[in-house]
């Protein structure tokens, strides 16, 4: 717990430093500003050696006396203030909570400090980047998303949980899975299977795929949340387990895989502690259609957005491996995408009994 306290003090100091700089500028009668690293493709580098996406050094100045930035400036300070209070009182809270904590009406106007949580979330990220402190260090957590099941016991905030006996729902992965909260006790697994969708995860769970193949079965309900990604990172690094990712055959699925593997553009600053460069792409591959004789009627035509997204991904430096280029090009060529559920057309347990074992066994994955 000392660790936690130190972390809190450090974070508080960083926040205060940020504010003091602003005050200094105000006292000089200057336009107060905040330096915020840019979180966009333009300021993201793919580190070939580490195989992760890293944040560059480009900074964006956020001025108060600028109509388009004033509100964000104010919001940043509000969030910073709230975080400081959180740290001071040694409580953690969800980012939704924080949104409500900082939301109020401005003066006599009809304006609110925040209109929507989508407004406050990026601000939190801004704050994280600019003071170089992780959300967890600010005592913030997101809502639980994603679940896990497998032959493993964990200690979560002091409670011992047997992840093999979690019924059909599995253990819901918390947003903060730092060492001081989640501790791995007994892990008996050969690999981790990360599934995009919970529907497919349910099928695998119901078929006790994890028991049969001794694995840890996880899903992230679409784009994997930070908790899931951090947990994956820890499992891979601490328990040295290989990680397979099983996603839809569409540009979005590919990107989910790439986020798990190399990190995201938006949270590039966290890649260091979240990206799992060793992750392997198990499917669905564009070539699976032929390989497994999937009927044509389960395919979905690519729409305009899919095509442009696919083309975008094609340009990303971390998709430049030949296999991936082929993969994406094949999808564009065929003009169709596949959902994981499409495999059910070959029989309800085709996934568990045929497809996955085949792929894992024969190393039919993309790196």
């Amino acid at each position, binding site marked *: 717990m000392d660790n936690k306290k130190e972390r809190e003090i450090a974070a508080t100091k960083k926040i205060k430093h940020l504010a003091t700089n602003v005050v200094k500028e105000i006292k000089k009668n200057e336009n107060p500003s905040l330096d915020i690293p840019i979180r966009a493709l333009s300021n993201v580098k793919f580190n070939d050696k580490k195989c992760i996406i890293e944040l560059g050094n480009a900074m964006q100045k956020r001025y108060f006396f600028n109509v388009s930035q004033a509100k964000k400036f104010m919001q940043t300070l509000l969030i910073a203030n709230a975080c400081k209070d959180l740290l001071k009182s040694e409580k953690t809270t969800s980012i939704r909570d924080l949104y409500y904590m900082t939301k109020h009406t401005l*003066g006599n106007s009809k304006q609110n400090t925040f209109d929507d949580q989508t407004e406050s979330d990026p601000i939190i990220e801004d704050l994280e980047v600019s003071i170089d402190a992780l959300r967890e260090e600010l005592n913030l957590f997101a809502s639980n998303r994603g679940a896990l099941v497998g032959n493993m016991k964990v200690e979560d905030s002091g409670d011992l949980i047997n992840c093999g006996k979690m019924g059909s729902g599995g253990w819901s992965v918390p947003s903060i899975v730092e060492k001081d909260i989640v501790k791995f006790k007994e892990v008996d697994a050969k690999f981790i299977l990360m599934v995009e969708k919970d529907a497919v995860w349910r099928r695998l769970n119901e078929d006790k795929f994890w028991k049969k193949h001794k694995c840890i079965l996880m899903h992230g309900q679409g784009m994997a949340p930070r908790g899931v990604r951090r947990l994956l990172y820890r499992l891979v690094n601490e328990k040295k387990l290989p990680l397979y990712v099983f996603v839809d055959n569409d540009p979005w699925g590919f990107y989910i895989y790439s986020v798990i593997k190399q990190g995201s553009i938006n949270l590039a600053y966290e890649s260091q502690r979240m990206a799992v460069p060793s992750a392997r792409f198990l499917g669905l591959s564009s070539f699976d259609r032929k390989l497994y004789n999937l009927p044509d009627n389960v395919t979905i035509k690519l729409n305009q957005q899919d095509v442009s997204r696919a083309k975008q991904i094609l340009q990303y430096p971390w998709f430049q491996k030949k296999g991936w280029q082929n993969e994406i090009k094949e999808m564009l060529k065929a003009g169709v995408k596949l959902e994981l559920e499409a495999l059910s057309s070959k029989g309800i347990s085709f996934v568990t009994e045929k497809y996955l074992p085949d792929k894992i066994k024969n190393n039919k994955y993309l790196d």
Partner: protein
Amino acid sequence: MQTKLTESKTKKVSTGKTAEDMASKQREISISEFFTKNRHLLGFDSPRRALMTAVKEAVDNSVEYSEPVLIRENGLIKLVKIGEYIDKKIKKSKNLRINERSVESSSINSVESFVYDDKTFKMEFKPISAIHRHKLHNKLYKITLIGNRETKVTGSHSVFVLKNGKIQSYPVEDIKVGDFVVVPRKKFHIEGVDVIDLRSWIKQLPSKINKNIIIKKVSHKFHNISNDWKRFDYIPLEYFIENNIEIPDSAYISIKAGRSSIPVMFPINYELMRILGYYASEGTAYNQCLVFSFGAHEKDLINDLIKCVGLLSSNLTTSKILAHKTAMTIKLNSEILTYLFKDLFKCGSRAGTKKVPSIVFNSSNEMQKEFLRAYIAGDGHIGNKVTMATISKDLAIGLKYLFVLNGMPFSESVKKECIREFKNHKSNCKKVYYLYYYHKKAFQNSPLSWIPVNESGLREIINALNPKVGSFNPHYRMINSRNSFTIESANADLKQAMIYKRNLVSDERIQEVQNLLNGDVGFLKVKDIEVVTSESPYVYDFSVPGSEKFLGGEGAIFLHNSLDACEEFEVLPEIKLEIKRVEEKRYTLVVEDNGPGIIKEQIPKIFGKLLYGSKFHKLAVSRGQQGIGISATALYAQLTTGKGIKILSRTSPQKPAHFYDLHLNLKTNDAEIITDEEREWEGKEHGIKLQVTMEAEYLKGKRSVDEYIKQTAIANPHATIYYKTPIDDWVSFERATQELPKEAKEIKPHPYGIELGILMRMLKDTEAKTLQQFLTSEFSRVSPKIAKEICEKASLYEKARPSRIARQEVDNLYKAIQLVKIMAPPTNCLTPMGEDILLKGLKKEVDAEFYAAVTRPPAVYRGNPFQIECCTGDSKIILEDGRIITIKKYVEANMFDKKVFSMDDNFKIKPSKVFMVHKFKNKHKILKITTKSGRELNLTANNEIPIIENGEMIWKKVEDAMVGEHVATPRVINILGKIPNLLDLLNPEHVKVVEQELVSDIMDKLKNIYGDYKKVAQTLNINYDIFKAYKRTKYATRPNLTNFKNMVNLAGLNFKDFKNKINNIRLVDTNFTNPHSLKIPELNEDVLYILGLLNSDGHISRKGIYFINMDESLHKSFGNKLYSLFGLSVKRYKKHESSVCNKTLYLVLKEIERILPTLPDNLITAWLKGFVDGDGWVSKHGDIISEIGIATAKKSSAELVQTMLLRLGIISKIQKKNIPKKFGKIKGREIKTKKIQYNISIRNLKNMRKFHSLISFRQIKRANAITEGIQSMVDICCRSNHDVIPLGNSLFKFREENNLFQYELGFSDLSIRDIEKNKQNMSRMNLQQMLSLEKFDGVMVNRLKLLAFSDILWDKIVNIELVPHEEFVYDLTVETGNFIANNIIMHNCAISFGGSIPGDGLVQVVRFANRVPLLYKQSDCAITKGILNTAWRNYGLSQSRGALPSGPAVLIVHMNSVWIPFTSESKESIASYPAIMKEIKLALQECGRKLASHVRKIKKIEHEQKRQKIFELYIVEVTDSLHNLTGENKETLMKHFQKIVKQRTIGGEDGQ
């Protein structure tokens, strides 16, 4: 037409009819057929459009006749004999015309006539356009008015007479004794000249005198002149004339032998006026000198004259000669002055020939009076009225006009020649003219200040306005018994009557009478009319366009110019249009104008022939263009209803009007006059009235007749249009300008615009002998040189005969013309409206925030010049948060977290919360309420105010409220003020703590704690060097208050303890270059007393604080107090002025002034003490004080004092007073002052006592007066009729409940009875006294108690009047449902202003061609296309592709050309020739740019305000966060922020 005729030729030829038969048949068919087949071309395709077209034709053709030339120059005011003058002018005239009735006319420039305005009756000068004279045809009349004003006019000549409430012109023949004639009444302001330049005058003198004139005092400026000239300092005038040298303006002139000289820039001053005045009365001019004869006893006059002469020019000499015992002669020896008086000033030389010098008329009103004063001193006798006598008729007339111009009432009489005998001496006495001037006291007796009640319509109106309130005002009783009222009381009565306006009289009617009363003209009764003989064979006349009147006659009477001599119709058009519904789809159209009318011979041509027009052949701008319409209308009418057209026409007032009933003969295409009879046409001197019934449909909306009329009004602001539809009543579009459009010139065609066929025809028709001559004479802009060039290019011999040029050669010629560069055609053939006229028209009909107009320089298409005019009006929607009045500010600045004062159910005044604020568009009248105590408030008519009736308060609509009723106003306002520390009022950054000891003390302490200064300075964030300097005694820097506070805090001490120790501060505002230190006292009563003194009798400025008063004791106490409070010594300047120059004090006082109303009562009292010591007074009647008053010049201070007095519970009354002119003398000159003063008066004893005990005076004299007065007064002396409670019936109920008789209440039973009948009101004091007597029972007693001890003063309404309309009104929703505005309690409403065009939807496009609105076929039109093709987005209006721009704007485009290429005969749209399109676009773009800059400005302001608002909102959040995060002081942050905001928003540049 021609082609149509051939087309419709019948195909059957074989019937054997003769060619003649067929030809006549052809015609018959063709006309009706042509019409029916081509209705759409002519604009008769639907009943709706038919009406439109008919209206259009009728209106267009009436406006057209009036295109005069107007020129105006500044002239000298002269009094001339009209005959002499016109004879002279006509003799010289080059443009003399004589018409068939042998009227000689000549147009004339730069002469103006003195007229009054028909609407407002204000007097002004108007240009005369022409003069006329003609032989006397009929009798000559002499009219004599009361006071013996006379004038001689011909019988048909008109004068203006007041009849039936209107001023109308009547021929003299019709005037009867007893009629009232219009004459000038009020003073006419004349600016006057200060100096006249005699240089041009002396040069024009006959050479006999001319050569003797020498120029003095300038020889030193010339070198090549004879030594003699230099020695005696003179140069002959000849030298200047010969060498053509300008005489320097410092020169003096004299005539050789004479010693005295006068300046060449001759001053027109009071001295000259006096001399001229004395001369007019006593002077005689001889050859070389002026002589004034006085009685020997008239020493004052003699001395004054000598003094004046000396002041006029130091080189003038006078000599006194005692002619005999009783006569003293003053001789003014100046040949040049004598000559000046005789020749230039035209003073006349002897008693019988004297005149009022022309120069007097051209000097200012004051100087004119000076002249009169001097004249009266010489010849006048001052008694009840001033009597003047002269034997010079000219002088008498001149004097009368001087009286007229200065608004001085007078009368006159004449004493005929007689022989007087005196002690056996017989002497012939000449005819003597007596003038009587009614000065101040007798002013009311002058008939000029009276108005006839009957003739003016006053009686009718007052009776109509007020059928029953007669008893209210004593004047009303007289209205039926008196014949005339003084104008003053008539005005007052009318105002009274207006309050109870019933709707029996129209507003216009009232306005007319009010104008009569407020106008500059008066009315004199005709005393006598007689026929006289004329001295001259001619009679004379002026044309004054737009006014048709002039001031004339020996007695200065307004005369109508007689149009019998004026054939030019330079009148401002006035058109009446009426559409009447006869039955379904059948309407009658009546159009009336005031044009020249038409003569019988023209009628069949105009109305019969389809293609007859006066405009076809002429290349000049005119309206109707083809002139086809009215006949088509007639035809259409006849075809659809079978009825002909009815015409009433009058060509001159001498001739009767003619009525014609017209039928078209379709066979002959001729008009047949069925009826022709003479008719009476009342009130119309000339003009035409058409009546036509036809199948039509009247609809409202776009493209309706209504719209057409409105647009016509915009394009023709010089015309007045009256318009009546089947649905609405008469609407009038008043003219916005008196200027007539410029007269269009006819031009020859430009060669570029000619077509081949026309060229051929012209070659055939020309009278020119050679080709060159043909080209130069038949075309415009073709010089012989160009003609030659054309011929060369066409390889034609320039001397060839035009008629012999072959077909092919013409072609060559045509081509050659296009090749040669020819100047653009002259454009004086155009009559553009001009930007200002366009704006005038637009402003009149469209209410907008912004107007811009553009006139393009004329351009040429196909050789025809044209011009584009364009205009946009932009709405105020963008500007909704414009300037503000207080409630508006409150509403719009979101200040509603602050409470407002309101009245609760118990009649107590207390602050209440505001729940909501409102802003409405006002749909109601605005009324202004004035109460007895001088409070004023503007309210919408439907707003409610609390009125007391029978002891009960009811909410009554303002429009139902009556004068005499009592409205609730606050009697006391209780504000718990607080005393701020003076230091807190000032910006701590600007305040420096000067107390060296204090500072160094703290520094020592800090050093003890922290070791050294450096560390301390660092912690405090103060520069170390500066910090060190705090300790120095010399050249020391001092910490500002913020720094000092930080230091104190750092030392661990409480700043509050130190606040009191700081005695000296200094301000270093950036604007102060040299701040002085100042001792800071507590904000105590003395400070406020000083401020009060300064607010009343001093002034506070950056430059210094001044106190100006005559009372020594006040100066003493002012000085002492300033010294003891601020440590400042006062400088005394003269006896009455104390001053101190301290900028810091200035700032401090200004701050206190600002927060004055928030201070507690004791400080308010102190301020009032100061104020009354400066400006207060006590007026006493014997021992009794009648009034305590405070006078101030500013309304705002008066209102402040009233409110402050109210805080103390003293009720006062504000009265506005015009202080009459005061005469004072400074340096020998009389100085006049005039000012407006607001008196705050306190009258009631209770209030006076309160005043005495709380405020009183400190000057011994006044203090004694008030103390003695108050002591000697008993309650009975001043039973106030001010603080009263109208109990009425409630007192009766109260009595009933308690079973009491009237006398049992302790007052006289009579007065109680009166109170109960609402005839009298009980004063608050009496009511309180009554209620304290006994224990009463019942419900009423509680109500009475509430009333007796309420905070409400029931203020009597003394006036309710209508004020101009306001666009927006504001309102507050308060918890009690009412609030206090302008010290009147009111029910949720107040006002502001604005104006707007509907802002959504497309821009409204208004098109004009030659001032005619185009309504149909908008999309075809070049104008529309031009608008579509303009990129309006660049100019701030949104516009979707291929559509009109949208936004709150009206866009007007006017095309003016000698030939407008319409796309069809119905003249609805302009063809899009590229040249026209280009010009339209350019005009629109220019207009757009003007609009854009306006829109940008508004948007910028809006944007800035938005920005600032956003920042202000966010700053609070940011400061809070930062404070929380860093612990930084919120206020400091806030202050910095505000500073940055100021820098970065309005005024500063953009943040990033």
